[in-house]
Structure formats: structure tokens, C-alpha cells
């Protein structure tokens, strides 16, 4: 089977420092890394390959130096890599990014499965995976935490949800985005790194595609960021006080309440 893993280069830090004057991320002296969620996507593809045989393509859109990141993916047992890089691709939002990635995927062609990380740690949108599936016209499952089986062109997997898990089956070709619960990504080996240093990364520019320029980069990006915020999850907590008897009664009341039973 042929698996395509979408990979993004992100700043390698958890402590994002903002420039107080411009409110933009200070990227000086911060080395770039593979988006951590994408490392789970790579690992899952490699595990499928080790189990049932597969050819893995690493695909990224980004600045020319993203080649090094793709080389790292190859050191992790990805077989081939393609980088979409061109000034015309720059400034893309999630829609324009998925369009650009779809161009690369069409070039690779004849795929069975596309794996993306759940989201990138710099943008945090979790939109590119689903948007890419829509562009390609294939089915997708987000937040996959386990691939149970791939058999007869059907993938059977678990999707993590707010309330638990959903067990789903999807006909291939399809796209999945994976969460960190799915596996423990390996680190590259010396052998993998030696191989990766000699590997050739395929570079695709605008001229190599028959793309619609208006759907690419800044031009193809309708997104306007008005405000950013962290979604809140409302958790009601209550501290039970009183005598032992009062506390036990209140606890029984709470446990018997609808809210708890609904979740059971």
C-alpha cells in the first residue's frame, strides 16, 4: 500500500516568547522541528509498513530549509519525500495549504492512506487534515487513537472523543489525523540518519504544477484572524462540607444525579 504522511515544520519550543511591540512570535535562535503531532503520524505509517509492507511518502509545504525536516522523516524510515516550496505558496491559511498539499498528493498519485497529525503546535487549528480530505474528495476520520486492522481495503480504527471512543470503519483511500495516544514515536538511528543524508528530496515549485494561482498562498487565503482565544471547558466542582453524615448524603445525592448517570 502507499501511505502519504503530511508533515509541518514548526518552531521547536514550548515556551513561546512574544515580541511585546509586534505581538509576533520571537523565532530567533529557536531551531525548527517536525510538528510533534506529525511524529505520531510518521510513526503510525512506519508501524503499518513494518506490519504489512507499505511505501511511505513524506509531504510538506514550506520554506526550502524544510528539506532538512523531511530528511529527518526519512531517517525515521519514511521512504521518499516531497517538498512544495515556492513564493507563490507563502502566506497560506488552512484552505490554501490544503489546496497546495493536494497538488503534491496528485503528483505522488495512487495512494491508499493519508496520515496527518491532529494539529500543528504553532497554529493549533486542526483544520488542514479535514480540509485536505475535502479537497481530494475522500473520507476522513480525525483524532484516531488506534488502528485496529487494515484488511480488504477497509481500515478499522478508534477515534477519541470528549466522552470516550468511537469505533469506526472507513473504506480506503481515506485520510486520518492521529492523536498522541496512538503510539510512542521512535527516535532516528545512526543507520537511519546515514541513509537520510544521502536521500534525494523531490522539490515541487509552482511551475511544476498546473495549479490555480488564485487558490494558493496569501491570495487563496480567505481567513482573517480577528481574535484568538483558548476554548474553555466548563467543569463544575463542589466541595462537600458538613458532618460525616451530611457529607455522605450530599455525595450520594450527587452520584445519583442525572449528570453522573448520563455519563455512565
Amino acid at each position, binding site marked *: 500500500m502507499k501511505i502519504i504522511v503530511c508533515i509541518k515544520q514548526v518552531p*521547536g519550543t514550548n515556551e513561546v516568547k512574544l515580541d511585546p511591540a509586534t505581538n509576533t512570535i520571537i523565532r530567533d535562535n529557536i*531551531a525548527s*522541528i517536525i510538528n*510533534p503531532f506529525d511524529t505520531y503520524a510518521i510513526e503510525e505509517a512506519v508501524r503499518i509498513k513494518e506490519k504489512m509492507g507499505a511505501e511511505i511518502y513524506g509531504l510538506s509545504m514550506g520554506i526550502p530549509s524544510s528539506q532538512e525536516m523531511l530528511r529527518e522523516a526519512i*531517517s525515521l524510515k519514511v521512504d521518499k519525500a516531497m517538498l512544495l516550496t515556492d513564493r507563490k505558496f507563502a502566506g497560506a491559511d488552512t484552505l490554501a495549504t490544503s489546496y497546495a498539499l493536494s497538488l503534491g498528493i496528485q503528483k505522488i498519485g495512487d495512494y491508499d492512506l493519508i496520515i496527518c497529525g491532529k494539529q500543528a503546535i504553532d497554529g493549533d487549528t486542526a483544520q488542514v487534515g479535514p480540509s485536505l480530505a475535502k479537497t481530494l474528495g475522500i473520507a476522513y476520520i480525525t483524532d484516531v487513537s488506534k488502528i485496529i486492522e487494515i484488511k480488504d481495503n477497509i481500515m478499522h480504527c478508534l477515534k477519541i472523543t470528549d466522552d470516550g471512543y468511537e469505533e469506526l470503519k472507513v473504506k480506503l483511500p481515506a485520510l486520518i489525523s492521529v492523536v498522541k495516544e496512538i503510539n*510512542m514515536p*521512535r*527516535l*532516528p*538511528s*545512526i*543507520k*537511519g*540518519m*546515514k541513509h537520510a543524508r544521502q536521500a534525494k528530496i523531490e522539490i515541487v515549485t509552482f511551475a511544476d504544477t498546473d495549479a490555480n494561482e488564485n487558490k494558493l498562498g496569501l491570495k487563496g487565503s480567505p481567513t482573517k484572524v480577528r481574535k484568538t482565544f483558548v476554548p474553555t471547558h466548563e467543569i463544575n466542582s463542589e466541595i462537600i462540607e458538613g458532618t460525616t453524615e451530611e457529607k455522605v448524603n450530599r455525595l450520594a445525592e450527587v452520584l445519583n444525579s442525572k449528570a453522573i448517570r448520563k455519563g455512565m
Partner: protein
Amino acid sequence: MDNKIKIRFTEEYGEYLRDESRQVGFADSISFVKSEEEIISVLKENYANKIPTTIQGARTGLAASSVPFGGHVINLSRMNKVNGIRYDEVNDKFYIKLQPGVLLVEIRKYLANKSFITDGWNDSSKNALYHMKKGEWFYSTDPTEISATIGGMVACNASGAKSFRYGSTRDHIQSIRAVLSDGDVISLRRGEVISDGRLFSVTTEGGRIISGRLPKYEMPNVKKNTSGYFNKLNMDIIDLFIGSDGTLGVISEIEIELNKKQKSNWGITIFMPDEDKALDLVRALRGEKIFCDRNAINLNPSAIEFFSHNALDMLREQQRVNPAFATIQEIKENYHTAIYIEIEDDSDDKIWAGVEELGEIIVKLGGDEDATWVANNPTNLEKLHSFRHACPECVNMQIDLIRKSDSRITKLGTDMSVPDNKLKDVMKMYNDGILENNLNAVIFGHIGNNHLHVNTIPRDMDEYNRGKELYSSWAEKIVSMGGAVSAEHGVGKLKVPFLQKMFTKDKIDDMRKLKKLFDPDQLFNRATIFPYVESKGVK
């Protein structure tokens, strides 16, 4: 109590009777001093009344140095200010002046953020900080326990994984101030007070001249040693205080030296098919020529660490049953023994050249270049650090579990080092001993300096006692190999019997005479380094 700083010892101070060695002591009073003046005031009173004094930092020690043996406890954890920074233009070096209670983790945080509390600093310090911010600097001594205080680290001459390249605490201490038992202060700056052969003389701030003769014993020829007082011909007297386990004075200020941070920092874990091959790899990594047809590897690692096959088995098992260890890397079944190295250089390309050579050596030794984990960025390096720390954590968790059924049981850990040419002998000694006594033990640690921590997890009191006996017999053999019975934890109270295997009674008496020059009534850290002997008039 006459002195207002001193507090009568009550149950609420119970934790100050213990340290990480899990030994429990006893005391009458405690003080949480905040300045050198307060130390002096407490010590003057103790001196007048002949009250013994135990010195404490963060109590993270493993040899029970800070566990009190009666009398007073002087706790330095509240003396945790940074007093200033000094820039040495000639050598392009920065030095930080610290109170003894500053924690290692705080030093690291200050340096990472380049941010200090500068209240009370002079202009020269503030100016030095301004210059320091232009570069990246780090403090190289890296014991695993980052909540240790700098005072404690100086007292036991702590080291860590990177001591392979950077040496121990001693190698990065530029000056200290120490309060003697009578309250007088001694200020020592490296290079200023050197013994003439064995004769030395040092003047206190009070104008008293302390002079004497250094003992005749020789220190073992190992790279890591903290077994008794440092002693050498023409030595710097600052080195006598470093590693003295708090038996000579209360260290009230320390100046540490910083190193320039290198641009690239890699970690590599290498899994070898058997232990013997792993030991050969260690020899190659430290620059020994192990094959006649090829040169030594040009890699200059800062750390060379070891995980025995039973340590890997323990981690595999914990990974399976304990969610806390689910995030460490998966250890394949055919991985037998692991070697972990860290390399720092000014570019990735330079490191890579060495790594390519390393790959060739691994293959030549019968290993597999694919059985390696390479971390060449901070994110992945953190993963390898977690893996390394998982080993002692696993041991401690298992010990805590066993102690629930029998609280007399404690972890049995070794801290001995031997010369380079005894590496294979010492490994054989450990493996044979564990096997013959059927002990539940794992081996890990600083193999680059032939300094391993054998950690036994006794399943019952019988195993605990057999383990203790075995360790004692190992101490004897280590001495006959020319090794040190304590490499980085200090002698403290726990290893007093081991030190007696290393040095004859005469030599230990010579050490005691040296102590008495600075602490005539032997008030400091009673029962530490020396067996306790009642002295006249001392309470």
C-alpha cells in the same frame, strides 16, 4: 535558648532529622540562618558551650552527612541569594557568587532566562550581567538531583554524567568563604593559598594563622573521588574544604565558574548485543584504541553512561505495568546492554563526523547501527534524559513499595570508582556478586569514569543483610584495585566503615588531626568521615 535564631527541636522539625539516605538522626536545636553574620553568631555560642553542629542544605545527600548526631542543626536552605557576577576579561569567563542554599535547579533557571534578582548588587556585577546576556553560558556540574544546594554540592564534591568531560564540582569552584567552629572566617580564592609540599599556612579574617602539615596518605588514581580529604603535595587549600563533608567549616559563600554553551548538543543511546561488547565500546568512546587497524574515535563525549541488561529488563517491565513510564521509548527485546553518550560541539556537522565513525565501531563490535536512538534537538534530547532518569526513579518506586511491608529496608546503592584499566574487572565483580547472592539488582551510571551505581532492591531483610555484606566485600576489592569507595556522594556517616577499608587507622587519625586544626573540639558534623569518639566536655 540564648540565641534568638536558635529554635528548640520539636516534632514539627522532624524532617530535618533525615536526608535522602533515609537515615534518621537526633538533635536539640535548629537554626535557619539567613546570613554569614547569623552563622557566626550561632557558631560562637555553640563553640563557647561546646555544642556539636550538623550542617544542612537541601538534605538530598545519599550518605547521611546532613543527618544530625545530637546538638544543633544549622540549616542553610534560606541562604539562597545570588550575591553577584564577575567577568574575567583576560580569560573571557564569568563567575557567579552564591550563598550556599541556592539550588542547582535555580542556577540553571537563572542562566537559561539570564535573569537574576539584582538587589544589593554592585555596579560591577550589574555590568557583568549585561555582558553575560550577550552569550550563552552554563554551569557544567550536573548531579541527577537538581534540587541539591550548591553548598551541599561543594561539601561532597558532587559530580554527574557530564563530569566525564567537565570534571566534578571542585573543578569549577573559584572561591569560598567558610565560617570555622569558633566563628572566625576563612576566605579562600583558588591559586592564593598553596601548600609548600605538605606544609601549609592560612590566615583567617580574624588574623589567626592556622598552619600545619598535610597527611601522608595518597589519593586513589581515579577521576572521581570524594573519599576523605583531598590531599596532594603543593595543593590548593581551597580543595581541602571542597569535598570535606562539612567537617571543617560552614561554607557561607561560593563562587562558581561558568562555561560557554556549545551550539550543538546531541544524545545517543546505543544498544549492544552483550555487555562485553558494550564495555569495549565504552573504551573506544573514551579514546582508547581497541582495534589495531583503526584509530580511536574522535568524538569527545561529555558523558558516557551505562544501563545493564537487568536495568533494561526492569524498565521494560515498568513500561508494561506502570503508566508513569509509558512515555519512555520502547526497548526492543533483543537490546541487551545500553550505553548513553552526550556530545557538545560548535556545529552539528562536527558532531556528525564523529557519529559516523561511532557507527563503524558499533558494527565492527558486532552491534547494529539501527539499534541506536539519536537525539539532535532539545525536544528529543529531553526524551533521552527522561529515559536515563527513569532508571533511578524505577528503583526508588520499588523500594518505597517494599518499605511499606518492612520499613527497615532501604535501597543499597554503590558509589565506587576504579582506574580505567580495571573496568572489566569491576563489572565482573559486580555481576558475579549479584548472581552468587541471587540479588534483585540493576547497574547503571557513569561508566566513562568506571563509576557505576549498583542498586539492589532487597525483597526482604535477609536479602538486605546479604546485600550489605556484599557491598562491604566489594569496598575491600575496590581498594585493592586502586579505587575509591566514594566517588561522588561523599563519605557522610554511611560510608565511614568503607573509608576504614581504604585507609589504615593511622591515616584516618592523620585526617582527624587535620580536622582539629580548623575544628579543635570536633564540633562539626559529628560521626561524618570519622567514627564518633566522645570528646571531653562536648555535649
